[in-house]
Each structure stands twice: as structure tokens, then as C-alpha cells.
């Protein structure tokens, strides 16, 4: 059980003040609407009105730690040959304020391959310097299905500090030392009452019940394994996919990137930028993409999340955030696909 000592409450009216305090040492990021598109941006120093409209962002907070495009190094050539320079890395540590539990879990999932056999310095420096302040959902979307994936709208497993909406106040629960330090630093917080705790418990239970979209994850890995060669199934499932990058780019767990050099005269930069297994030119750089037909590419996406990731990291690489359903131009719905996976093995295999 969590000790009450680790919990405080703060008035919603004081959130802007609190962010102001944190913003002195950390670079605070909050949701912002940019031409109607909810995304993450540096806090402007005053506005906390996002709390009135924010459900989740279109662009996931993954983009803060794994930017759509980033410079890896620059280079130039002179009489002594080529010289490399690393980009300046003096950016202040980032605090992501009001990250949703699904997206916090997404970051935990992205961190796995980046800290596996090879440690990716670009991602890890940013991620390890970051502080996640979670905000539990009270109004999940109809596309959300986090509760089917060991998560939930108020899940506090992957954040440093968790906020729960209890009316005029937020309950603040410190989950890590980083989170505790945030509470300790401020005098804006008050002690939590038993009524606050009861209210928070009630909010959590009510919100869990509001997540109505469900999938059964049990046995999915095995079904995908046995149905891998079921070409007819995958072809049918993939028919309406247009092979764009929306569902992968905006997925909180997808992390594929491409690397390109820009060379102008004798100097240039190496960039990495988001890549997607949906694209026909994915993995084109060594030779060819072995997944010429789109059903193979789509199968890769599904299997990577629900079969290969569990094999490699013991977790499904999907947090049920629902972006891929909400944002898909053709309403390709992964929950329908996972629900309709064939149970019998080898109907008509690719090879037959």
C-alpha cells in the first residue's frame, strides 16, 4: 500500500504557479493546440487552460524523446580530412506535464530496444533526463482500449508523479524519487485528507469502467505465430490499408528510424528521422524491402507489436491509446483485426 506521506494535493488553480516553479530548473512541456492539432510544446509560462480540453494529443510525447527528425552529427572537410562534430547537448532536462498513462507506458516500451544490446545515446540522454508527471484520464475516448493491455486510464506504473482529478484539486502521488523531489520542492501542496483518498479511489474505478473497447490478449502471440502464413487472411485484412505512416509514426511505441546524410559542398549533417514498416521503401537501404505486398508489411506491424515484442521483451508493444484507430484515414481498426484472428492453423499457406 502506498503511504499517505507520499501523496499531496494541489488546487487546480495553482497548477500554473506550480509549473512556473518547476520550469525554473526543468523545461516543462504541456499539451497545446496548434491549428486544432493537439501536440506537445514548451510551456508558455502562464497558460494551464489545456486542462479544460486535453484528452490526449495527436502527436505522442514520444516525439519529445525521439524527435521526428534529429541531427546525429555534422561534418566538414578541410585540408586535414573530415571532421565530425556532435550536436550541442545542453538542453535543460524536460518535464512532461500531464502525460497519459498509455503514453508513459509507450515510453517504457520504446526504451527497451534503445537500452538493449546497443545503448542508444541520443534517445537515452533525453529520456533519462526527463521527468514524467502523469495525469489520469477521466474521459477516455471511444477508441481507447488500455485496460485490455495491463494498463488503465489512471495506471501509475510508468510515471514519476501521478495526478488524479478529484474535483477542485489534484491528488499527487509520488511514484519515484524524481517524483518525490518535485513535491518536496514546492510549498503549493497540502496534506491529503481521507475524503480526498476516497474520492481518488472512486474516480479511478469509475474511469476504468468507461474504457469500453476491449480485446482479449490471451493467446494472441500463439495465434499470430500459427496464422503467420495465412495469406488469405492477411490479404483480406490489409485490403483497405493505404500504407501511409500515420499509425506507426503516431504510435507511442513505434521507434523505427531512417538515417540520411545531407552534404552541401564540403560540409553536411547526418540526420535520423522516423521511418515506417508500412512504406514500400522501408529497409530499402541494404537491398530491397522483402515485404513488397502491403499485406506483408501490415502483418509485420501487427506481429511486431503482438508477437515479436512479447518474445523479445515480454510485453505487448501496444498500450491501447487508440491513436491508430482514431487517426487512420480508412478506419483500419487493430482491435477488430485482433478479434478476428483465425484460430485454426495453416488454412492456405504462403508456400502452398
Amino acid at each position, binding site marked *: 500500500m502506498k503511504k499517505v506521506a507520499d501523496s499531496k494535493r494541489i488546487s487546480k488553480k495553482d497548477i500554473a504557479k506550480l509549473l512556473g516553479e518547476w520550469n525554473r530548473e526543468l523545461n516543462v512541456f504541456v499539451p497545446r493546440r496548434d491549428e486544432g492539432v493537439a501536440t506537445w510544446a514548451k510551456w508558455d509560462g502562464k497558460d494551464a487552460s489545456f486542462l479544460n480540453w486535453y484528452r490526449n494529443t495527436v502527436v505522442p510525447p514520444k516525439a519529445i524523446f525521439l524527435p521526428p527528425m534529429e541531427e546525429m552529427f555534422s561534418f566538414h572537410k578541410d585540408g586535414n580530412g573530415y571532421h565530425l562534430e556532435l550536436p550541442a547537448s545542453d538542453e535543460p532536462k524536460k518535464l512532461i506535464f500531464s502525460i497519459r498513462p498509455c503514453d508513459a507506458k509507450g515510453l517504457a516500451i520504446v526504451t527497451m530496444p534503445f537500452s538493449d544490446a546497443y545503448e542508444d545515446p541520443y534517445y537515452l540522454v533525453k529520456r533519462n533526463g526527463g521527468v514524467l508527471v502523469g495525469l489520469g484520464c477521466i474521459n477516455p475516448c471511444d477508441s481507447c482500449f488500455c485496460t485490455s493491455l495491463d494498463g488503465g486510464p489512471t495506471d501509475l506504473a510508468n510515471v514519476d508523479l501521478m495526478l488524479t482529478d478529484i474535483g477542485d484539486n489534484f491528488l499527487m502521488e509520488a511514484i519515484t524519487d524524481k517524483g518525490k523531489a518535485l513535491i518536496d520542492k514546492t510549498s503549493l501542496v497540502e496534506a491529503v485528507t481521507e475524503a480526498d483518498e476516497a474520492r481518488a479511489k472512486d474516480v479511478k474505478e469509475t474511469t476504468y469502467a468507461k474504457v469500453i473497447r476491449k480485446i482479449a490478449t490471451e493467446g494472441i502471440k500463439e495465434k499470430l505465430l500459427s496464422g503467420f502464413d495465412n495469406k488469405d487472411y492477411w490479404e483480406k485484412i490489409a485490403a483497405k490499408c493505404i500504407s501511409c505512416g500515420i499509425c506507426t509514426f*503516431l504510435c507511442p511505441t513505434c521507434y523505427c528510424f531512417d538515417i540520411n546524410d545531407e552534404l552541401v559542398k564540403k560540409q553536411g549533417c547526418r540526420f535520423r528521422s522516423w521511418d*515506417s514498416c508500412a*512504406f514500400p521503401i522501408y529497409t530499402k537501404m541494404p537491398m530491397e524491402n522483402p515485404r513488397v505486398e502491403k499485406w506483408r508489411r501490415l502483418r509485420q506491424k501487427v506481429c511486431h507489436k503482438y508477437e515479436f515484442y512479447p518474445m523479445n521483451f515480454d510485453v505487448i508493444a501496444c498500450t491501447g491509446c487508440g491513436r491508430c484507430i482514431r487517426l487512420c484515414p480508412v478506419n483500419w481498426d487493430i482491435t477488430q483485426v485482433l478479434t478476428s484472428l483465425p484460430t485454426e492453423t495453416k488454412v492456405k499457406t504462403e508456400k502452398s
Partner: protein
Amino acid sequence: MKDMEMEQKLRNEAKALLEQGKVDCIIGFEPGSLKFTTTPLITRDKGDIERLVIGPFIVNNLAVFLTELEGRIGIVAKGCDSRSIVSLIQDNKVVREDVVIIGVPCPGLIDVSKIETLLGRDRDELDEIAREGDKVIATVDGKRNEFPVTETLFDNCLGCELPTPQEYDILLGEPTSPVAGKSASQAKIDQLKEATPQQRWEFWEEQFSRCIKCYACRNVCPACFCQRCFVDESEPQWLLPVPRWQENLMFQVIRNIHVAGRCTDCGECERACPVNIPLRSLTREMYDIVDEFFHYKAGTDKEASPFLASYDTTDAEDFIR
């Protein structure tokens, strides 16, 4: 004819086409998995036909699937979609005899994002959305809200000249007239036209700074039928494949030139964009330029040479002679 009657006729016709072997495959719409959405239904199975629907949310331009499917195809097409099919026929990407066009006279589609903005609520928080003549009724928290179509249909639907398919094999219902919404349709574009070149440049810099290069705009577009897009070329690499605003803008400018005379203003590029870049402000302007200077409207004459592949010795510019 009401949507329900059109739907029944559609199902009967589609089923007959499959049963009589006149087509191998049907492309239409079925209910989407979220409120106020539909999703493409591509099927060779007549058991699926009962799922076909028509209505104010049939947003996709299904012509985009024609070039990747084999056999004879029955396809549901609104006015703009039928023009895209004709354009593909002109470009020899589709053989006329291999498609059965099931035309839908289209009174304009409801842009749910406009209703979200008007009501300050998200799609899934709305109870009901319905079209009633020149009004759209949106119910939220049990309260009925009436909006004129000029505020609630897609911009491209408001500027649609040919809502009834001109090229079809089966027409569901009676021809319908264009919505009187030209000025609402042009509002964003007119605003840009009034701006100075510097202001326009800054506007597009800001817009394309949001672009994540997902290529949904290209991939939903039936006019973007290249086997390999120029941005996917690596030898030579025409554009660095990074989502930097300059590259994003160049991609879109070149795409716009490539689809000139093919773009039927179906609005799919703008609708598909997950970061709300007003792409139609580029494509519709190009559509009007092609119309004004070359008297050419995409996909209105299947016998005509494709716009970008034709010239005339009487052309005003002498470089072409």
C-alpha cells in the same frame, strides 16, 4: 431517394453483380468502428454485401484502390470519385470495361471536425449527427443544435461542381444539384490570396513545420498512382526524406504539379492529414488554375488526353511547338 433506399438498391445491385459474375470484387463502404465513420469494404464475398452503406460519412475516394486490384470491379463512386475513375481511365491505369461504376449522387459529406469545433466537443462525445435539407443537426447531451450546411460540410463539398457522377453504369437515386457554398468553400483560399507573398511564405512555413511526412495525403489520392514516387527515389535522391518544413513544402508543391489536371478536389488529402495542414488550399487553387487557363476539368471526359500529356499547335506559348 433516401439513404436507406439507396443502400437497399446498392446492396441488390452489388449482390447481383457478384452473383452474375459481372464483377469479381466490390468496393464500397461499411460502417466504421467509431461513431460517424465509415470504412472501405473491399470484398469478393457476397455474404459481405449486406454491410454496404451510403450516407453523409462516406468520405474515402475509393478509386485509390482500383489500380491495385485484379479482375473486374464494382465500385461505389460519388461525383468526385467517379471523376477520379475517369481520370485513371484517361491515364490508362484503369480499363473502362473492367469497372462497373455504381454512382451515388452526393449532396455533400459532413465534416465531423467542423462540428467538433462548433460545439467544442469531440466526435465520441456527440450523440447524433444528421443531415436535414440545408441543415445539419448535431445532438450533444440530449440538446439539438442546428447548423447550416455551409458551416458543416467539407470545404470541397461546398465547392463541388459535379455532385452527381457523370460516368456511371448504375446510378443510385436521382441526380442532385451542387450545394450553394462556393464562398464558404473558398474562404481559406481567398484569405491566402489576399496575403502578401511574404505572409503566404510564412503561413506555409508554419503549416509545413507540423508535417510528419506520413504521406497519407499521397496515399489516399487516386491521382498519385506512380509506382514509385519521386520522394522514394534514392538514386538520385531528389529530396532528403526528412520532415523538415522546406522538404515538406517542396514535396507538396511537386505533388500538386503532378496531380494538376488529375485532382478532382475530392478533399481526401486534407481530410487524411493528421496534423491539419490545409492542403486543399494548394490543390483547389491548382484545380482552378487548370480550369481557368486551360479550360480543363479533371475526369469529365474519358476520351480526352490527360491534361499534362496533351498539347496543341495552337497553344499560346511557343515553347511547346
